[in-house]
C-alpha cells in the first residue's frame, strides 16, 4: 500500500540504525518515551528495539485509550447494558477490558446484554435510526484523533432530532497526560521516571497540530519529535531526539510532516469544541485523577449525554492488587516486572488493561517480544 510499505523498508531501516549507532554517544544514556500505543506496537512488531544501541532505551507511555480507561468507567457501560437494557455500541478494543465482579463487556454480552462492536460512530448512529424502539448508547473512548468523529455523530443526531441515541463520553486529552508524566519526572522519589525526550503522537497531532507541545519544550526543557506510526518514522524520530540531546536542544520537531502541520485540522478542533467542553478532572488508570484531562458533552447537547440521560455516577474501583499496569503506564516498570505477565495475564484472559489492546505495552511485548527475553541455546 502506498505511503505504508515505503515506510517499512528494510534497507532504509538498516541505514537509520547505523546512523543512530553512529550518533549516540557511548558515554551517554538516552531514555526516550514513546507516548502512543501506536508507537509501542510498531517498536515491538518490527523489532525496532533490537536495532537500537544498548544505551538508547525506549520507555512505553500511557497513550493507549483502552489501557488508561479505569475500571469504574467500564462498570458504567456494563450497568447500562445489563441493568438499563440499552443497546451498547463500542469499538472492539474495549470489549475485553477487565471490570468489576470478574466482568468485561464481552462477558456481559455472554450474559445476554446487547453489546455491539462498531467500526465507526456512524454505525452506532445507524443502529439508533434502525431501532427507534431501543435506547442506543455509544461508549466513546479515544484521544484527540477519535474525538472529532464522536462530535460529528452527536451533531448529526441533534440535526436529525434522534430521541434514542446518546454517548458515554470517555474521551481524553494527550497534552495534559504528557504534562503529568513530566511533572512526576521532576520528583523521582515519588515514582517518576527520568525521560530525555518524547516521540510525540502521530494521528493525535494530525488533529491538534504541533503547537500544543511547544509548552513542554519551554517549561520542562524536553525535546519532542512528532512521528508517524510506521517503523521508519519511529527510527527517524529517535535519531532526531539523539541529535537534540547531543546538541543540548529542547525543541518541538516534526518528522510526520506529510500529515501534521503546526495548527492541525482546525475544522476538527472547531467541531470538537462545539460539542465538548473540559471536565474538571478525570481518572486515568495508572495516572490517577488528572485535572482538565478529559472531555464531557456540553449542556446544550445534554440529551445525548448518557451520563445525564441515565443518571450515571462514577465510582472509582481499585485495580487487581498484583497488576502492575499503573506503574507500567507511567513508564516506571516494564511488562516483565509484573508477576502476572504471561502467566495468569495473557491477551486471551487479561487481568490488566495493558494486556487488552494490541497497543498496550504488555500485549505488544507478549505478542512480539516475549521470546527475546529467552537466550538462544544450540542443542
Amino acid at each position, binding site marked *: 500500500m502506498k505511503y505504508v510499505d515505503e515506510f517499512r523498508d528494510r534497507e532504509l531501516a538498516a*541505514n537509520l540504525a547505523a546512523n543512530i549507532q553512529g550518533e549516540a554517544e557511548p558515554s551517554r544514556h538516552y531514555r526516550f518515551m514513546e507516548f502512543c500505543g501506536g508507537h509501542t506496537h510498531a517498536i515491538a512488531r518490527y523489532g525496532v528495539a533490537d536495532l537500537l544501541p544498548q544505551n538508547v532505551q525506549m520507555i512505553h507511555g500511557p497513550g493507549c485509550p483502552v489501557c488508561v480507561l479505569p475500571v469504574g468507567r467500564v462498570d458504567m457501560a456494563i450497568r447500562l447494558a445489563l441493568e438499563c437494557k440499552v443497546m451498547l455500541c463500542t469499538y472492539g478494543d474495549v470489549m475485553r477490558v477487565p471490570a468489576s465482579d470478574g466482568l468485561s463487556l464481552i462477558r456481559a454480552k455472554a450474559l445476554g446484554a446487547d453489546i455491539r462492536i462498531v467500526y465507526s*460512530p456512524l454505525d452506532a448512529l445507524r443502529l439508533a435510526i434502525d431501532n427507534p424502539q431501543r435506547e442506543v448508547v455509544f461508549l466513546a473512548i479515544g484521544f484527540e484523533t477519535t474525538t472529532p468523529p464522536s462530535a460529528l455523530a452527536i451533531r448529526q443526531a441533534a440535526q436529525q432530532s434522534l430521541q434514542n441515541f446518546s454517548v458515554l463520553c470517555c474521551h481524553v486529552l494527550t497534552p495534559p497526560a504528557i504534562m503529568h508524566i513530566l511533572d512526576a519526572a521532576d520528583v523521582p522519589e515519588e515514582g517518576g521516571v527520568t525521560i530525555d525526550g518524547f516521540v510525540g503522537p502521530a494521528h493525535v497531532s494530525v488533529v491538534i497540530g504541533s503547537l500544543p507541545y511547544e509548552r513542554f519544550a519551554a517549561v520542562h526543557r524536553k525535546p519532542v519529535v512528532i512521528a508517524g506510526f510506521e517503523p521508519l518514522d519511529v527510527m527517524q524520530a529517535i535519531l532526531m531526539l539523539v541529535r537534540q540531546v547531543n546538541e543540548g536542544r529542547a525543541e518541538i520537531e516534526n518528522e510526520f510532516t506529510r500529515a501534521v502541520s503546526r495548527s492541525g485540522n482546525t475544522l476538527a478542533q472547531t467541531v470538537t469544541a462545539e460539542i465538548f467542553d473540559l471536565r474538571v478532572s478525570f481518572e486515568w488508570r495508572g495516572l490517577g485523577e488528572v485535572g482538565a484531562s478529559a472531555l464531557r458533552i456540553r449542556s446544550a447537547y445534554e440529551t445525548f449525554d448518557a451520563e445525564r440521560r441515565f443518571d450515571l455516577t462514577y465510582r472509582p474501583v481499585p485495580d487487581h492488587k498484583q497488576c502492575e499496569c499503573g506503574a507500567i503506564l507511567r513508564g516506571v516498570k516494564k511488562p516483565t516486572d509484573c508477576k502476572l505477565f504471561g502467566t495468569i495475564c495473557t491477551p486471551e484472559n487479561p487481568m490488566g488493561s495493558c494486556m487488552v489492546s494490541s497497543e498496550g505495552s504488555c500485549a505488544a511485548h507478549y505478542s512480539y517480544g516475549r521470546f527475546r527475553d529467552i537466550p538462544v541455546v544450540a542443542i
Partner: protein
Amino acid sequence: MCLALPARVVALLNLETATIDLGGIRKKISIALVPEVQVGDYVIVHVGYAIGMLDPEEAEATLKLFAELAA
C-alpha cells in the same frame, strides 16, 4: 486505537461522503473533516472519517531523510 491508514479518494459522492481505495478495498467514508479533498488525493482514515490529508511532497522529503548517510 489511533490506528489510521492513508487511502486514495476515488470518488466524491456528496459534500460529506467519498469512496476510498485502500490496497484494493473500497469503502465509503465521511469527508466532513476535510471538505477540500479531491479525487486522487490521499487522506488519513480513522473510524470511518478522513481526519487529515497526506502531502505527497513531504512524504518524498521524509523518505529522502531516511536514506541520508551518516555524516
